[in-house]
């Protein structure tokens, strides 16, 4: 048993879902994603028992490409995030009439497949293929099932596609350059090449462009809010919950290990960009009137902190980045789902049209509060561990970074509570708001348990991580 089974399950699941037809599609998709989750759990157990669950075989000799799926703590955690969130994201679609559901859910599973591949691939070329492959399903999901008129939506989604695709091309160039030096795409081989500091800086920058757009880091973010807004909820969750993490993961797995001697000034500039992004996005979130766009900017602020931690290039910063990435993945999916629940009832994302929901729906509001406070890093939630570690790592680089980055705990509370007050609290709304149904409750409950459990006992995750960092 090794990690290929997870990949194959997702791929076959995608095909089966497509074949299953409109009625059965969701059941098949959920089932296969649960199987993938089970397989992931099994692989982690084996891994923890000291069994190597990696997989390696040569794909072609000229050029020298390997299908090498490396399972270590970091990649397994990322795969877990993917296979944990995928069934839940699929379940959020219950009761919602998507047209051509079999195509949609097949695309979702295909995307999970591509993202899992990205997290596992150890060969740069294969990694690159998976990286770009993940873009295709989300492109169609957003384009075909999104909101707003076709013209406006098309403009936003194509912008997103070209933007991220263009950024990735620089990464490809960097890989080709490295290949030409070492004759292999395999990460261990690439890491052994001795590059001059200048070369490293250029490679760093080429990777950076790809990741800065994916994350996104200020000022490469302009695709994000529009794409999140226009995508269907399921797509937004995939984008913000998992796909965005491909960027952070890649920084930790590829960019930093390959360029350990990158110019200090470049690294500092990047760090400053990340921190500008935190404050910039927070202030925009303060003024955002659309729930989805607000969460998009909040996500950007959080990711700014995560990236800043990663770019401190310290063990603590990287550990914090991983922890916060997982926490953020869970919390942001929950928040987008809550927003989707509002949309299902009221057909709007505009805060000014909401309010007074608290009086109708106590369960809904309770979950909203849990994830709101998780998102602003209340101690006892998983996000706190991440946020604390990240800010601590920043403080080791410079106090001013920690204080400026730490402003997120103030701004975050400000825009989230403001949104909560305007959208949920207030005079009882004239329109009734049906409280959570059982599937909605289940999804949110599972996510809430994860957020609180790992907030108090994060050891399973950090232990797993220590195998790799």
């Amino acid at each position, binding site marked *: 048993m090794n990690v290929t089974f997870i990949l194959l399950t997702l791929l076959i699941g995608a095909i089966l879902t497509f074949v299953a037809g409109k009625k059965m599609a969701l059941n098949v998709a959920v089932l296969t994603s649960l199987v993938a989750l089970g397989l992931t759990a099994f692989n982690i157990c084996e891994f923890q028992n000291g069994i190597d669950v990696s997989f390696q075989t040569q794909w072609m000799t000229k050029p020298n490409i390997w299908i090498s799926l490396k399972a270590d703590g970091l990649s397994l955690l990322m795969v877990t995030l993917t296979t944990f969130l995928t069934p839940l994201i699929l379940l959020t679609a219950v009761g919602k009439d998507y047209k051509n559901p079999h195509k949609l859910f097949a695309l979702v599973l295909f995307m999970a497949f591509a993202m899992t591949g990205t997290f596992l691939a150890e060969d740069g070329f294969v990694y690159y293929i998976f990286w770009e492959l993940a873009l295709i399903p989300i492109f169609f999901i957003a384009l075909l099932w999104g909101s707003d008129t076709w013209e406006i939506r098309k403009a936003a989604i194509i912008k997103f596609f070209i933007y991220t695709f263009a950024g990735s091309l620089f990464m490809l160039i960097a890989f080709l350059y490295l290949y030409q030096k070492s004759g292999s795409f395999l990460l261990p081989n690439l890491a052994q090449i001795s590059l001059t500091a200048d070369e490293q800086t250029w490679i760093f920058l080429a990777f950076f462009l790809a990741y800065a757009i994916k994350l996104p880091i200020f000022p490469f973010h302009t695709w994000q809010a529009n794409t999140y807004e226009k995508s269907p909820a399921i797509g937004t969750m995939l984008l913000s919950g998992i796909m965005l993490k491909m960027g952070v993961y890649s920084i930790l797995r590829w960019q930093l290990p390959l360029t350990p001697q990158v110019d200090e000034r470049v690294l500092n500039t990047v760090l400053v960009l990340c921190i500008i992004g935190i404050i910039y996005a927070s202030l925009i979130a303060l003024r955002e009137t659309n729930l989805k766009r607000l969460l998009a900017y909040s996500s950007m602020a959080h990711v700014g902190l995560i990236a800043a931690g990663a770019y401190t290039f310290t063990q603590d910063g990287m550990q914090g980045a991983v922890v916060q990435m997982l926490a953020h993945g869970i919390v942001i999916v929950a928040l987008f789902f809550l927003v989707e629940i509002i949309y299902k009832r009221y057909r709007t994302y505009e805060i000014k049209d909401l309010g007074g929901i608290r009086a109708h729906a106590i369960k809904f509001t309770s979950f909203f509060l849990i994830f709101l406070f998780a998102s602003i890093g209340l101690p006892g939630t998983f996000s706190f561990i991440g946020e*604390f570690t990240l800010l601590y790592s920043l403080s080791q680089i410079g106090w001013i970074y920690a204080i400026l980055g730490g402003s997120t705990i103030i701004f975050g509370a400000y825009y989230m509570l403001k949104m909560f007050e305007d959208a949920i609290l207030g005079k009882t709304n004239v329109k009734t708001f049906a409280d959570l149904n059982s599937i909605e409750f289940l999804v949110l409950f599972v996510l809430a348990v994860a957020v609180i459990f790992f907030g108090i006992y994060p050891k399973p995750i950090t232990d797993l991580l220590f195998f790799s960092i």
Partner: protein
Amino acid sequence: MDTNILLFALIIPLIGFLINFLFGKKLGKSLSGIIGTTTIVISFIISVCLFLHIKETGEAIRIHLFEWFSLKNFKIDFAFYFDQLTALWLLFVTGIGSLIHLYSTSYMKEDENFHKFFAYLNLFIFFMMVLVSGSNLLMMFIGWEGVGLCSYLLIGFWHQNREYNNASKKAFIMNRVGDLGFLVGTFIIIYIFGTIDFVELREQTVMGITASSFAVLLSFATLALFIGATGKSAQLPLYTWLPDAMAGPTPVSALIHAATMVTAGIFMITRLNFLFDLTPDVQNIIAIIGGITAFMAASIGLMQNDIKKVLAYSTVSQLGLMFMAIGFAAYEIAVFHVITHAFFKACLFLGSGSVIHAIHGEQDMRHMGGLKKYMKITYATFLVSTLAISGIPPLSGFFSKDEILMTAFHNNIPLYIIGSLASIMTAFYMFRLLYLTFFNKFRGTKEQEAHLHESPASMTIPLIVLAILAAVGGLISLPGHSWLNEYLAPVIVNNAASHPHHLGTTEYILMGIAVIGALIGIGLAYNKYIKNQEIPVNDNQVRGIQKVLANKYYLDEIYMAIIVQPLNMLGGFFKNVIELLISGIVLFFAKFASEVSYQGKKLQNGNIGLYLFAFVFGVCTMIYYLFIAR
């Protein structure tokens, strides 16, 4: 002492929270109230046992549960630590907590979200217990932020009212400003000591390993922690949330915003007294901030007409006095005042709740008056507590406040004067409150007058208990022979070096001055509100300095103008201008690329000769690269 019992004391309020939160509606109000109250009473009983145990053995108890998380150079334990200080705080948190839970069973009877109220109150007690029994700074931070969460939930308990929601939001955000200070302070402490465990920190400081080489950095650490304390304990410049927090139900004001949560800052600094002792500059700042806050808040209190607002400013002012004591390294005196203040201020708030209850939600003292004859018990307990806070001997407030002023006298005369003036003002506005509320004729509507009544026993019993405590609480630390001082000796490292407790002529003279000052304040109030029967004028008739006071020195307006609005404007600017600008630049690159491709397209013009040339050139390059260059 069995550690499981201690853990049980910690966890049972949490269980109460879960029961009431999940099933409260089904249980019905009486059962929900019983569960909510019993859980806290159980915690209280165990706290008493703990207190007796620690008093007997003098040894702290540490409970290590598991390793919470670890970083490269250190790890953080999920552990609890019970020493003298913790036991003391647990005692009055759960003790007053029990009384206020009991009181709330009547006070909140009409509320449809009764069970939610008890759930949140229980959760608050849980977090407060975590705050005081955490074994390191981050464990304390769980409680620290947790009580902030409960405060947020309870201030905005009546969530349909926009103003209340704003108040709760403001409280949480301003606390977060302080929390950033707390975190930064924690980071610096990790940097200096490599640990945040209280016991280890203490050992390191006592041994003096790191003291001198990090003097400046340590000052920043204690300053940052103090900023954290100004948030939670409502000191300048972050106090403005506390008066607004009175939007919450009155038992909440009594428990959270007077007796317990707001003392967290004092607790934290006392817990880390050995660090603050190493940074005298910061101690000076603390004393000065405390003194100014005490004075400012007292002066605002002179002009408030909302009964709860007066008490709120009074709380801020009293907390200022406690910080002044802390600034003089007189930790045990600050703790003493924390305790006496908890008694009389909880009693005053509950008394005001009883009054508000009787006149159906009216809080403006201009519409009260003459309640003495309708509400005898409320009046009597209120009178005792008012005398106590005004510093009339032999009630508890006299002793604790007097010790603070004495310490100030020995350390810093200007602060002594400021503190004394604040005390005189306190006596004035408290008796103003008492006279306007309970004396003369009733000024409300006829309908209200017909319904005036004394509150039920479940509300008056807590009042009586608290009034007794407010009267005799001073016994725990009599001048000359302080039990509290001895009890806290193991906690406070540089104990009593700077402030001896013997009584000399100076001390008696100071006491005399303090009492005369209080009597002057009371006399002025008597003259104005009993003899001349004055009633405060309408808000729009207030002029001059009085107007500045009535408007709280315009501090809210100033913060709005220089911080909140600029941030919002900047956000708007980013959203509406910068975002478009960046989009435009990105689009420019895209246009540029498409222009290049358009030009490239011109090459495909059907000219066979050009194609042939490109083909040959390409083949030659490939041949060169593959064979010759190798």
